[in-house]
């Protein structure tokens, strides 16, 4: 599932976003897992929004398929959820993916830290605000706050990864926790 998140983040980067907000909420009371990515990229027109989930529709000029959002939508619908897209052409896009937390086919979250670290490595100029609402605690990390400006790219990535992994584990994050089916098969 964290790979779908990486795909959504890449969409934001391709839309020219400078600031991206990522939120992951595990709400056991209402049995909901919600992943939201909102950016300040170029946004989509209403017709683009209408066909965004279609695997044979893409904004790219050199290929014929656009699988990122459609694959995320498929994973969500298998787990009793869905994808919502809100977009404004001058302000950016917000994609919300909802799953039923306890659904047997809900994929495990996977390594979210790996997703964010590899995204930051490839897009060092984008600022990310990440918020995780876990079983134990809420964890929030803003890349603007950990940048010092003078450090190298690698030093920044390593610092980001350290803070991210520490914060996630103290908020009760479990990458391998998925629906019944995935728990039995031990897939991630």
């Amino acid at each position, binding site marked *: 599932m964290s*790979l779908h998140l*990486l*795909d959504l983040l*890449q969409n934001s980067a*391709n839309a020219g976003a*400078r600031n991206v907000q990522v939120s992951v909420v595990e709400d056991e009371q209402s049995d909901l897992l919600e992943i939201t990515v909102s950016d300040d990229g170029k946004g989509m027109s209403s017709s683009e929004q209408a066909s965004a989930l279609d695997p044979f529709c893409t904004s*790219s000029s*050199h*290929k014929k398929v*656009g*699988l*990122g959002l459609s*694959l995320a939508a498929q994973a969500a619908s298998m787990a009793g959820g869905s994808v919502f897209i809100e977009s404004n052409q001058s302000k950016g896009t917000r994609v919300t993916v909802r799953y039923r937390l306890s659904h047997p086919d809900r994929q495990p979250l996977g390594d979210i830290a*790996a*997703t964010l*670290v*590899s995204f930051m*490595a*490839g*897009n*060092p*100029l984008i600022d990310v605000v990440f918020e995780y609402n876990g079983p134990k605690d809420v964890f929030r990390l803003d890349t603007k706050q950990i940048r010092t400006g003078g450090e*190298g*790219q*690698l*030093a920044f*990535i*390593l610092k980001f990864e350290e803070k991210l992994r520490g914060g996630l584990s103290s908020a009760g994050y479990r990458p391998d926790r998925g629906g019944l089916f995935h728990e039995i098969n031990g897939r991630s």
Partner: protein
Amino acid sequence: MKSMEDLERLKEETLQDIRLRASSGSPRIVVGMGTCGIAAGARETMLAIIDEIKVRRKFDVTISETGCIGLCAKEPIVEVHIPGQPKVVYGNVDPSRGRQIVVSHIVNLKPIDQWILNVEDNS
């Protein structure tokens, strides 16, 4: 040019250009991170490359990413740019290959021939 926001954006873009030019003297690694790359394991390859660069203390290496280049069957794809040398494109780069590329190509300047998909000579 319409507003302060446009002006800010132009400033950012120009600064980015300057940074790219400033780093043109150092090696650069580009990992393909389109949907196909992600599905093939580009995220783990990227993390392995970051870790190997850390271990080898090659802090001047710049890491970046690109989208799908149309060779989805060969993903994860990794490009290595060394200043003054042709650009080398590697295919099927799993984490272990990624580490070996860092050691052999970036540190020791010896490309690994059997994994190369393409060599582009820009000079």
